[in-house]
């Protein structure tokens, strides 16, 4: 049993240490470590990713929790998830201390003046990608249609967009109401 915890710890520590960019960037390395230690089967891993996407929280964190729980129970989940986050703590705390104290240095300022719009562009691209995948017809809920975009999803997305932009509606409320609306409109 101790070996199982040790493997979970070292495996997920490695995943946390060697993947930059979070989320989906972590999945290939996760798959390798899972295959090496035989934590879960390949088919189970696909199901786990689907659940990790659907449930609240960061995808990589959810996947680590799930794999840890399947392998060694509650303690396994805690060990895997902690190990995943530990490299971040060790690296970021000193780095962000440096950044906080030198933020006003002109060269560092110039660098971040260039980085900020680049991040804005990345977020715009991510918004487009999320829109493309999430507004499609869900094959589990409705028959294939000639029109690839599900107009019910599109209307929900548009109403939420306007509610947040114009009325400053709390995102949490928007999510909860949309879950209820989804229950009704996707039921037909």
């Amino acid at each position, binding site marked *: 049993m101790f070996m199982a915890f040790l493997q979970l710890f070292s495996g997920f520590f490695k995943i946390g240490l060697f993947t930059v960019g979070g989320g989906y960037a972590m999945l290939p390395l996760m798959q390798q470590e899972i295959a090496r230690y035989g934590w879960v089967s390949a088919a189970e891993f696909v199901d786990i990713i689907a659940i990790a996407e659907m449930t609240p929280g960061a995808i990589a964190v959810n996947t680590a929790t799930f794999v840890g729980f399947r392998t060694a129970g509650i303690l396994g989940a805690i060990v895997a998830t902690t190990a995943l986050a530990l490299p971040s703590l060790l690296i970021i705390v000193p780095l962000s201390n440096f950044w906080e104290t030198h933020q006003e240095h002109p060269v560092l300022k110039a660098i971040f003046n260039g980085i900020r719009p*680049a991040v804005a562009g990345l977020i715009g691209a991510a918004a487009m990608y999320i829109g493309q995948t999430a507004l499609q017809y869900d094959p589990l809920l409705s028959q294939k249609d000639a029109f690839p975009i599900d107009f019910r999803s599109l209307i929900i997305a548009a109403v939420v967009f306007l509610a947040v932009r114009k009325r400053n509606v709390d995102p949490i409320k928007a999510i909860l109401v949309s879950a209820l609306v989804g229950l009704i409109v996707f039921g037909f």
Partner: protein
Amino acid sequence: MRQNQKQRTASLRELFVAWFKIGLFTFGGGYAMLPLIEREVIDNKGWTDKEEILSIYALAQSVPGVIAVNTSIILGNRLGGVKGAVVAAAGVISPSLIVIMTIASFFDSIMNSVYVLQAFSGIRSAVVGLVAAAAVRIALASLKDKSAFVIAIAAFVLSAFTDVHAIAIILGGALAGLLAYYLGAKRRVED
């Protein structure tokens, strides 16, 4: 001076609760977490501002680890030192631990419920609207001059239509910022 307007301390409990809330209500991870992070740390808590959050995201994305966890560590460290960083990270992770362990115990029955699928279709659609609103808000906050606009368009095109990695794009932005700085400095000297 701008620094002084931001709140510089927070109790560990406040940090934990704020990040727990973010972890509990973000679906989809990664960029889908941004709208909630912004609502909580900018609007509700005033721990950072619309402009600085982009620098924090850049930092969080350029180092190893999960982006949301990295963001929680940066702000936790600012407000409560190493202890604050640990507590903020624990807060954003805890909902996953609780929710996933519950689901893992009832795996099959949950996955086969049509009601769950319907509710999640609604949630996924809402996330599209939320992320789009965040993208607009971020664009308005960061695109202040012509060079920023050009950098943002280039980053968007590279990220949306090519396989160039996000880190390479961030590094490119850093180089462009340096270039603009030195060109600007030269111009000022010549004047």
